[in-house]
C-alpha cells in the first residue's frame, strides 16, 4: 500500500470544546506567555545569562499537544523548552530559578535555560544540540514499545532541526520498528536567521517521513483546538501500534531566536501581522467571549497569572547562588 501523505484530516476545532476546556487552554497559554515576557525582562536586567530562547507565539502547540496526552507519556524537546516544561506541570518558580542559575532551580541552577529536565513528570529534557533529541525521543518510544506499557513519546523538533542527518535516521528506525512516537515539527519558519525556504528544498515538512511510510499532517499551530484534535488522532495512531506519525505545526515565534538576534532576516511588518492576525491567545479569548464569557473574568485570569509569575520571579531572584562545591557533584555516581 502506498504511504498516505495525510493520515488524519482535521477541521480546526472539529471535535469542539467546552468553555471550561477553552478556559484551561487560555490559562496554560497565558502562563507560558507571561512567564516568557518576564524571562525576557530578567534577561535584560542581566539576571539570566547564557542563552535564552523564548517561546512567545508558539504557545498553542505545546498546550494543545499536552492536552492530547495521557499520564505517563514521554515528552522531549529542544532548547526552546520553557513552554514545554511549564506545560508538563513543573512549578514556574523552579523554572525561573533555573533560568537565573539559582539553587532553587529545577536542576539547582546547573542546567540553565536549555537543559531543563523533569523525569518525575516524564519530561526528558530540553536539548541544546539541534536535532539530538530526535533519536533520543525515538529511544524513549522504543522503551515504551518494549515494555508494552501503552505509552507514547512525543518528540518536538524545529524546522531547522529537520535537516539534521540523525532526524532522517530516526524516522527510518521508528518506521521499521513501528515505534509509538509522535514527531511534532514546530515550523516557526526560521531556524535562527535562516528561513525555511533557504534551508529546505520543500517548505512544507510534514512529508519528511513519507519515504519510510510515516504519515504526516500539516496543522495550523496557532489554533490550539486544531493542535489538540490532531494531537488526539496522532496519539491514538501511535498508541495503537501503527507506528510513528509526523505533525507539522505551522507556527511563529514573535521574539528573536535568542536574546541576541540581529533580526535582519524578516521584516517588522511580518511579525506585526502574525501577532495581530494569528495570535493563539487572542483566538481562544475571542472564542470564549463569543460563547458568553465576560471580559472581566478573562482579565481577572490574566491578572492572577501575572501574580504567579511575579512570585516566580521573586523566588528566583531571592534564591541563593549554587554552592561552588556543586561543580563537582553529579559527575559520577557518588560513592
Amino acid at each position, binding site marked *: 500500500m502506498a504511504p498516505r501523505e495525510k493520515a488524519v484530516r482535521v477541521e480546526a476545532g472539529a471535535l469542539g470544546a467546552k468553555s471550561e476546556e477553552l478556559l484551561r487552554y487560555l490559562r496554560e497559554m497565558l502562563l507560558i506567555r507571561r512567564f516568557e515576557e518576564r524571562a525576557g525582562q530578567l534577561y535584560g536586567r542581566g539576571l539570566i*545569562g*547564557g*542563552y535564552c530562547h523564548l517561546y512567545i507565539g508558539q504557545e498553542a502547540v505545546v498546550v494543545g499537544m499536552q492536552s492530547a496526552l495521557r499520564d505517563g507519556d514521554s515528552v522531549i524537546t529542544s532548547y526552546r523548552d520553557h513552554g514545554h516544561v511549564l506545560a508538563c506541570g513543573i512549578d514556574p518558580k523552579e523554572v525561573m530559578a533555573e533560568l537565573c*542559575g*539559582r539553587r532553587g532551580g529545577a536542576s539547582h*541552577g*546547573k*542546567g*540553565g535555560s*536549555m*537543559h531543563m529536565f523533569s523525569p518525575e513528570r516524564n519530561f526528558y529534557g530540553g536539548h*541544546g*544540540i*539541534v*536535532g539530538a533529541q530526535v533519536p533520543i525521543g525515538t529511544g524513549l518510544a522504543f522503551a515504551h514499545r518494549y515494555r508494552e506499557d501503552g505509552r507514547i513519546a512525543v518528540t518536538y523538533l524545529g524546522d*531547522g*532541526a529537520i*535537516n*539534521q*542527518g540523525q532526524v532522517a535516521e530516526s524516522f527510518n528506525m521508528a518506521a521499521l520498528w513501528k515505534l509509538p512516537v509522535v514527531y511534532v515539527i514546530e515550523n516557526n519558519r526560521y*531556524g*535562527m*536567521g*535562516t528561513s525555511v525556504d*533557504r*534551508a*529546505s528544498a520543500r517548505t512544507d515538512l510534514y512529508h519528511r517521513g513519507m519515504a519510510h511510510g510515516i504519515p504526516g499532517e500539516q496543522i495550523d499551530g496557532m489554533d490550539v483546538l486544531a493542535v489538540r484534535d490532531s494531537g488526539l488522532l496522532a496519539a491514538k495512531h501511535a498508541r495503537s501500534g501503527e507506528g510513528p506519525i509526523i505533525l507539522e505545526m505551522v507556527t511563529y515565534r514573535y521574539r528573536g531566536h535568542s536574546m541576541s538576534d*540581529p533580526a*535582519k*532576516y524578516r521584516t517588522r511588518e511580518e511579525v506585526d501581522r502574525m501577532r495581530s492576525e494569528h495570535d493563539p491567545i487572542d483566538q481562544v479569548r475571542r472564542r470564549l467571549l463569543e460563547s458568553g464569557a465576560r471580559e472581566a473574568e478573562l482579565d481577572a485570569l490574566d491578572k492572577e497569572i501575572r501574580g504567579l509569575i511575579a512570585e516566580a520571579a521573586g523566588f528566583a531572584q531571592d534564591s541563593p*547562588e*549554587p554552592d*561552588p562545591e*556543586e*561543580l*563537582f557533584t553529579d*559527575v559520577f555516581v557518588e560513592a
Partner: protein
Amino acid sequence: MPEITLVEAVTLALARAMAEDKEVVLLGEDIGVDGGVFRATDGLLARFGAERVFDTPLAEAMIAGLSVGLAAQGFRPVAEIQFTGFIYPIIDQILNHASRLRTRTRGRLTCPLVVRSPYGGGIRAIEHHSESPEALFAHIPGLRVVIPSSPRRAYGLLLAAIRDPDPVMFLEPTRLYRSAREEVEDTGEPLPLDRAFVLREGGDITFVGWGAMLKETLLAADRLEADGIGAEVIDAATLKPFDTETLFASVQKTGRCVIVHEAALTGGFGGEIAARLAEGALTSLLAPVARVAGWDTVIPGLRVERHYMPGENRILEAARKTLAFA
C-alpha cells in the same frame, strides 16, 4: 590606523583571502544573511555574493563532508561551525576523510579546508557554547590546530590557514572576540603555522598557554614581576604542530614551567606538553611541571563558571609552588 577587535581581524583576513583567490568560499549556518552569530562574516555576502558566502541547512556533518568534496576539487572552503559545542558531528568527516585525503591519495589530492569555530568559555554562555575540545583535534594526525589570542595573530594565522594545503581547525576564543583590540595592518602577510609566540620575556619561570587563558596568565606574570620574579609567557598558538623548540629554549633558561589551559585537565593538551618536557628537557627542569586547567567536570552554568575557569589566582598559586620547589 584604528584598532580593531579579534573578530574584526577574522573578517579582515577572510575578505583578504577571498579577494586574492576566488576559490575561497565560506559556508556555515547563518553566516550569510545574518553575518554569523558573532558577525565574523558580516558584510561578506554583500561583497562577494551568494555563490561564495552561503548559508547551509542546519547539518554539521554535511557541512564538513561537503567541504571535503569542495576541497578535493581544489576549492579552499572555510566552514564555520557556530560553536565548538556543535562540532562533534563533524569529527567523522574531519578524522576519517579530511585529514587522510593526502595520505590516501599519496598527495594527489589534498584538503585545503579550514574549519573556524568560536571556542572556549568565559562569556557565561554555559555548555555547548563554552567548550574547549582542542585536544580531541590535536590527536588527529594530518590536522592542524590553531588558536589565535590577539587580532594580529588571528589575521596572520587565519590567512596562513586558508592558504595552507592541509586541513586546519581554527578555534577562535569567544572571550577575546571583542575584548582584544589592536592595530592590524591589512598587508596580506601570514604568520607561520608552526611557531609559538613569546609574549613576554623573563628568566625565572615559563608559562605556556593559548587562547583566552593568556590574558589571565599575563596578569599573573605582572603580579610576579611586582615581586621581582621574571615570567616568560609563551602563546602556543599552533598546538599541532607544536613548537617544542621555543618551549625548550625558554625552559632551559627558567627551569620551571606552568602550563595553563581551560579545557578539563585529564587528557588535555597540557599532558602532551608535560610529556615533551619530560622527554626532551628533563635535565633543564628545576621543579615538576605544573598544569592549571579546567576541572574534570562539564563546564558549568553561569553563576559557577568563575569557579571553573582557571584565573589569575590559580595560575599564581601554581607558579609560587613551582618557584618554591627547591
